[in-house]
């Protein structure tokens, strides 16, 4: 059995994707995990959900009881269910605070399940957060799960999770952190469905194209989904969007005035489908350099 260690802070968002596809029985060792983002949760769920059914998957839960309790609170083990074996056993889950500003990990078979989930989550989130933050969250989720269904349709479904961080305990920039992932064909193959965008040389090129207006893999007059996600991420304050698809990654700083700075890179491993991280910022005073500095140290150095 192969072991993949996912430790430290936000290992899947901060580091590289794990080698994919999984070719042998695999243990995901979360023992040293100290901080996890919604992106990490959905990425792990995609890995488990899209792995070959004949493979045995095992998860070693975090040693840190707070982190383990958080994974339980976010329903990671519930959503992964019978697909994984957890060893050693999980502790009994702590009582839940019903009004926490988060959306637990969910697996969606159809995108419009998010419309139905809003009935449950809108009142909870609105009891803690301003109207515009909640509206922004659901607009972003709506666009991303639509995309996941369009270019990500797979038996694994798509996964979502979100949490509002005040930064008080996490030390991270304040705002709504959102993760959406799928195990579908990816952005490059999706765009190839439109003759205008067939033959793109790389996944990075596909991501570069996909964040432009009116770019779509369909025949319809569409192509605003990711553009709107980028706008929404920076609407109230500086935000960050990370898009991973295939072997490409784009990281975008977006400012309230519509400014956008992008960094692209080629990933050492292919990621299954497409995964997106959004930090919809909520501190107006945070500067672009401050945001990049915080996220750079967080994203590529902190382990």
């Amino acid at each position, binding site marked *: 059995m192969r072991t993949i260690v996912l430790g430290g802070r936000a290992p899947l968002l901060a580091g590289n994707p794990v080698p994919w596809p999984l070719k042998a029985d695999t243990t995901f060792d979360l023992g040293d995990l100290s901080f996890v983002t919604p992106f990490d949760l959905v990425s792990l769920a995609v890995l488990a959900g899209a792995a070959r059914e004949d493979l045995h998957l095992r998860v070693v839960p975090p040693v840190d009881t707070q982190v383990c309790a958080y994974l339980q609170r976010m329903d990671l083990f519930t959503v992964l269910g019978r697909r994984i074996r957890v060893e050693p056993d999980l502790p009994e889950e702590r009582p839940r605070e019903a009004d926490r500003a988060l959306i637990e990990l969910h697996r969606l078979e159809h995108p419009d399940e998010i419309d139905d989930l809003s009935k449950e989550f809108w009142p909870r989130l609105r009891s803690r957060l301003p109207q515009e933050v909640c509206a922004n969250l*659901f*607009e972003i989720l709506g666009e991303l*799960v639509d995309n996941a269904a369009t270019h990500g349709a797979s038996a694994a479904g798509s996964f979502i999770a979100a949490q509002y961080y005040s930064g008080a305990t996490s030390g991270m920039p304040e705002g709504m952190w959102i993760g959406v992932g799928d195990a579908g064909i990816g952005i490059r193959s999706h765009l190839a469905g439109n003759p205008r965008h067939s033959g793109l040389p790389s996944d990075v090129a596909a991501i570069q194209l996909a964040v432009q207006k009116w770019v779509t893999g369909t025949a319809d007059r569409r192509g605003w989904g990711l553009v709107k996600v980028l706008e929404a991420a920076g609407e109230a304050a500086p935000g960050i969007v990370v898009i991973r698809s295939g072997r490409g990654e784009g990281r975008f700083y977006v400012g309230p005035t519509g400014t956008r700075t992008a960094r692209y890179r080629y990933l050492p491993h292919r990621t299954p489908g497409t995964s997106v991280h959004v930090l919809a910022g909520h501190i107006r005073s945070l500067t672009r350099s401050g945001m990049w500095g915080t996220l750079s140290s967080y994203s590529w150095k902190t382990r």
Partner: protein
Amino acid sequence: MTKHRLVVDGPVGATRQRGQEWRQRLEELLRSSAPGDLVEVDLTALEAMSVSFADELIGRLLADRLTGDFQDRAIVIVGGNEDVRETLEAVLERRDAGALYRDRQGLVEALAGPSWFRETVEQANDLREFSANDLALRLNKSPQAMNNRLKQLAASGAVLRERGVPKGGGKEFTYRAATAISGA
């Protein structure tokens, strides 16, 4: 003249798929209505709406109406909060379309559309029932230019177009402002 209402379920319209489902219900409502009727799209239950949802529900409906579908039925969008209004406006602008919008206070306005849209709707509302020539005279435009505007106005649902038979024979369209319909 009957008023129909489609109440869109809240609190959030998030996905293109759900927007499409609501548009199909709206099209059914339009089909089951009669010429001269008013159809209200009630968004007051929505706290938030994504661009894709709004585009699928309203944007595509208005685009389809440009080809002539249901132009003898008026449409008024009944608004929710400012977020919803802004998203709707953004979607309409991207399609270079306009719509008639009524806010929670009952004020009716022409939303988005080409530069001439608002002024033309206001004059149409003032005339209530009119021919293309009547409106052309009001706005000091040629009948041809006015026909082009009226085509978009009818597609938006702000006016409804009805075929009449003039005294001399042939065919002629008459128009009625949506606000002239009782309850609009």
